[in-house]
Each structure stands twice: as structure tokens, then as C-alpha cells.
């Protein structure tokens, strides 16, 4: 008999709506950046340097969020910067999740020497200070989008590997994988068919967190001028530029900073919201 438990339908909470909404806006902004921004992100007009945003007196019409020291439109640069941020978040986040989860799953389920090798590797890896490690990597690989993505994957796979390993271990200790093996499944197919679906919610939640982290790492690297070329608009680069003229023109630094903050917050809150919905306690 099916009982009340099958009737549970959880509502999508406010958290999921707000964070998901902001991320959706960001995606649309990144996709339609050329249509939305009145000016090009690289268009300079030295006569219009450090123009304030539209509600401050002395604002230049058409430059809604004001301009930076070179007279470039801040709105346009933030919109185009969203492209870099989202590409890094999606691509680096997914590859990190794939690499880390695969290794974690193998270690946690197969145990034995596989676990020993992978676990020691994780321990060693985590002894490196991540920011220095990434700066070193970019210095070796040379700046550019691909280098940033590689750096994030190389630094952050351990985050997935550790959590997924623990989760796979817990699932592997239950009776159902043993039953599946008695029923003639190989260890590898048990891992994929039985264990993986049960660790997937964890992976999804971690992935959203990782996307937020990827955005931050990209911003940090842009801030120290190690991201993509300095001309191209990135949020980190804009914050770095704005820092020098914070006393004359606060908006140059504050707008990209707020955008970055909201984005990272949304990623982590989106993950939390998803976790609530997938929570196995209620399953």
C-alpha cells in the first residue's frame, strides 16, 4: 500500500526563486550583452571619464552605471564580464565535478589500494595553498581563459573527491549494493547503476557551490592581472581598476563588486535550495 509519504510534494522555496532568478538574469545578460548594452565594452571616450551613475547629478545620459577612468561604459563591461564569469563557472565547474567525482566514487566504492592511492593524492594536493598554486599555474601556462579553467580544475577536484568518496563509502556499506552483487552485477556496474544515482544529489549541490568558487577564483586572478588580457572586461579586473580611484569614483569598483557578490551568493544559495529539495531524509 502506498502511504502518505508518496504524497509529499515540496514547494520551491523563496531561496530557490531568488537565487535562480538572479542566475537566470545573468545568463540572459551574458547571452544578449550586445543587444542590451548601449556602448561597446572597449569603447573609450576620454572626455567622459569617471562619469557617475544616472541618479547622481552630473551623469551623462546613456551611461546608466557611469564610466571608468578611460570613459568606458560600466554597464557594458559588467554585462560582457558576465560572459567570462559564466563560461568559467560552467566549464570549470563541470570539469572539476567530473574529475573529482569520478576519483571520489572509485576510491569510496572500490576501496583497497585504489582508495589508498587516491586518498593520499588528495591529502598531498590539499597541502598546497590554493591561491598561490593557481597563480603559479597561470604563470606557467600563461594567462587566458583556458588556463584559468585548467587552474580551477587542478586546484579544486579534491573538493569533490573527498565528499563523494565519503558518500560512496556510506552508500557502499548499505545492503543494496551487496544484494545487487549477489544478483550477478559486477563491481563496476554496481558502482554506476546502484551507487552513482544516490550520490548524484550531493554532486549537483557541490557543483553549484563550485561554480560560485570558480567565479571568485577567476575574479581573484583578474584582480592580480593573471586572468585573460587586461583589455577584456572581467569583474575582477574592473574591481582592480576601480580600487585605484575609489576616492574619486566609488561606482567603478562597487558595481562589479556587488554583481560578483550577488552571483557567488546566488550560486551557493541555489545549491542549498537544491539540497533541501533532494534531501534524502524525506525520501
Amino acid at each position, binding site marked *: 500500500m502506498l502511504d502518505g509519504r*508518496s504524497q509529499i510534494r515540496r514547494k520551491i522555496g523563496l531561496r530557490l526563486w531568488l537565487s535562480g532568478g538572479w542566475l537566470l538574469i545573468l545568463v540572459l545578460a551574458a547571452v544578449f550583452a550586445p543587444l542590451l548594452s548601449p556602448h561597446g565594452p572597449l569603447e573609450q571616450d576620454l572626455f567622459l571619464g569617471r562619469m557617475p551613475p544616472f541618479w547622481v547629478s552630473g551623469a551623462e545620459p546613456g551611461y546608466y552605471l557611469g564610466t571608468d577612468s578611460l570613459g568606458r561604459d560600466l554597464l557594458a563591461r559588467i554585462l560582457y564580464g558576465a560572459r567570462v564569469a559564466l563560461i568559467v563557472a560552467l566549464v570549470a565547474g563541470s570539469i572539476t565535478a567530473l574529475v573529482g567525482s569520478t576519483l571520489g566514487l572509485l576510491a569510496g566504492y572500490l576501496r583497497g589500494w585504489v582508495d589508498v592511492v587516491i586518498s593520499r593524492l588528495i591529502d598531498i594536493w590539499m597541502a598546497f595553498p590554493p591561491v598561490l598554486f593557481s597563480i603559479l599555474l597561470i604563470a606557467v601556462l600563461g594567462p587566458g581563459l583556458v588556463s584559468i579553467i585548467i587552474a580551477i580544475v587542478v586546484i579544486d577536484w579534491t573538493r569533490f573527491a573527498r565528499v563523494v568518496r565519503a558518500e560512496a563509502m556510506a552508500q557502499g556499506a548499505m*545492503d*543494496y549494493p551487496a*544484494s*545487487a552483487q*549477489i544478483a*550477478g552485477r559486477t563491481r563496476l556496474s554496481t558502482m554506476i547503476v546502484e551507487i552513482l544515482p544516490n550520490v548524484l544529489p550531493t554532486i549537483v549541490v557541490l557543483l553549484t557551490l563550485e561554480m560560485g568558487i570558480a567565479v571568485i577564483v577567476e575574479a581573484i586572478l583578474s584582480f592580480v592581472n593573471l586572468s585573460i588580457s587586461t583589455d577584456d572586461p572581467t569583474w575582477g579586473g574592473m574591481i582592480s581598476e576601480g580600487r585605484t580611484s575609489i576616492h574619486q569614483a566609488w561606482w567603478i569598483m562597487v558595481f562589479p563588486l556587488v554583481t560578483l557578490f550577488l552571483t557567488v551568493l546566488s550560486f551557493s544559495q541555489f545549491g542549498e535550495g537544491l539540497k533541501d529539495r533532494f534531501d*534524502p531524509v*524525506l525520501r
Partner: protein
Amino acid sequence: MSYLKISNLTVNIAGTSARLLRDVSLNVEAGEVHGLVGESGAGKSMIGKAVLGTLPRAIEIVSGAIELDGTDLLKLSPAEHRKRLGQSCALIPQDPLTALNPSRRIGPQITDRLTDILGWDTKHARERAAELLDEVQIPDPQRVLCSYPHELSGGMRQRILIASAFAAEPKLIVADEPTTALDVTVQKQILKLIKDMQQRHNTALLFVTHDLGVVSKICQSLSVLYAGMVVEATDVRSFFREPAHAYSRALLAATPKYTDPEASLTPVPEEVIAAVRAEVEAADQRLRHG
């Protein structure tokens, strides 16, 4: 000719001399229910796991043979072992709450074995699964096949696991304390169900339990274990009439009497424990030198 014949099975914690099973031998005839009884940690479940090849990695089989219908399982390659087990053995697990995969529907979890090992087509396997659910008295089988484990109660899940164990008509089922995790009221029904199914399908059953009352209801023969050693192996009638070993007698005397709830429990006397410990040590000596 016994269907399952375990001879001189000795099991250690890998890489140490810590013994978990000592020279265990037992026979289960085709269609017979054999009980494995003993205290916690006596190695009852360990024997079941050794037969099904699901011992944890940290535990190794040192010596002995587990023959299933004349073939020594321990000598088979992993692939042959898997095939052999899938065709002829199944498990009714202890905890129905963790024995079903929470993220898969019930249907495929029952039919997997039929399609993978026996090569049935999906439609046929699904019909068979529905029949089985009907046989274990689950109402509305079609709907249950499409539901997830979390939508069902514990007793319901145990019924499903029983159905699933009998699905491929195995010759031997290991039941590892199948009623321990359930409510007392449900236990009785489940026990009756297992017995009915076993008789209808004429399956041999290796029944792990610590409840002598359950043994008297369902088993034909039993082995009493202490510290991984078989202290007595006999048929159920003579065991309850006149247990041969002092430890068996003490164990029987320690069973709570439902007819006299006020009576204080009788523990196993110290001298009996001392005597059986001495036997265990003697067995260890033999194993070390033999």
C-alpha cells in the same frame, strides 16, 4: 548429497591471526531449512556472507571449501562465481530499509536478475515480478512496481525483498536475521511468509537468527555457533528434546519464557563458557599445527 556443503572453513581478519570462523563444517540438504544460531559476534552472518561472497575486504578465507551442488565456489573465477551465485543463490537481508536502492523504482530492482542473469525479456520479467508481489500478498502489484522504496513501509519492503529473493527460483537462499529489524507484530507474518514461500518453491534456506523460538518454527536442522566454532550440529527435534552440548543446553535455558514473564532470565553459567572457551582454544591449537 547435500546441496550446500561447507567444510573446514576458517576465516581470519586479513593479515592477522585473529580468527572469526574456526574450522566450520555444515551441510544443507536441498529444500531444507538450516538454522544458524549463536550469540552476537559468534559468526552466524559471517558464514552467510562467505557463502554469498560478500565478505568485507578486510576479511580473508584462510582454508576450507564452500561447495554448492558439488562445485567449490572458492575455486571459481570472479566471473564464474558471479554467474553461479546469480543463478542459484539469493539473500533475504536483515534491514529492509537499506536493502533497496532508494533512487530506483521497485520494478527494475526485482527484474534485474531475471533480465541480466537468466536473459529474460523485460516484459516477461515484469509480469513475473507482478506475480511474485501478488504471491507475497502485496496489494496492487502494478502500482508498487512503479513506486520508490521510500513510499513503502518496512514490512512492505521486506515482502518485496522476499519476492525478489525467490524471483529467479534459486536453490539456496541465505536469510540473514530477516525479521530482526521489524516490529514484533510484523515479524510473525514475515516468518510465516518465508516458510510458505520456501515450501512452495522447495528452496534450501540458511536461516541466520539468534531466536531459538524462530528456529523451532521454521528450521529442520541447525548449527549452534560459539566464537566462530560449530559446537553442535543436529536436527531441530533432537536439539529441543535433548541438546547434546552443555552450551546448547545453557542457551536453551537462557531463552525467555513467554508463559512466565515474571521469571528472571537465566544467563549462560560461567563454567559452561569456560568449558566452551577451552574447546575453542583446542580448535585453534589444532588449526595451528594441522
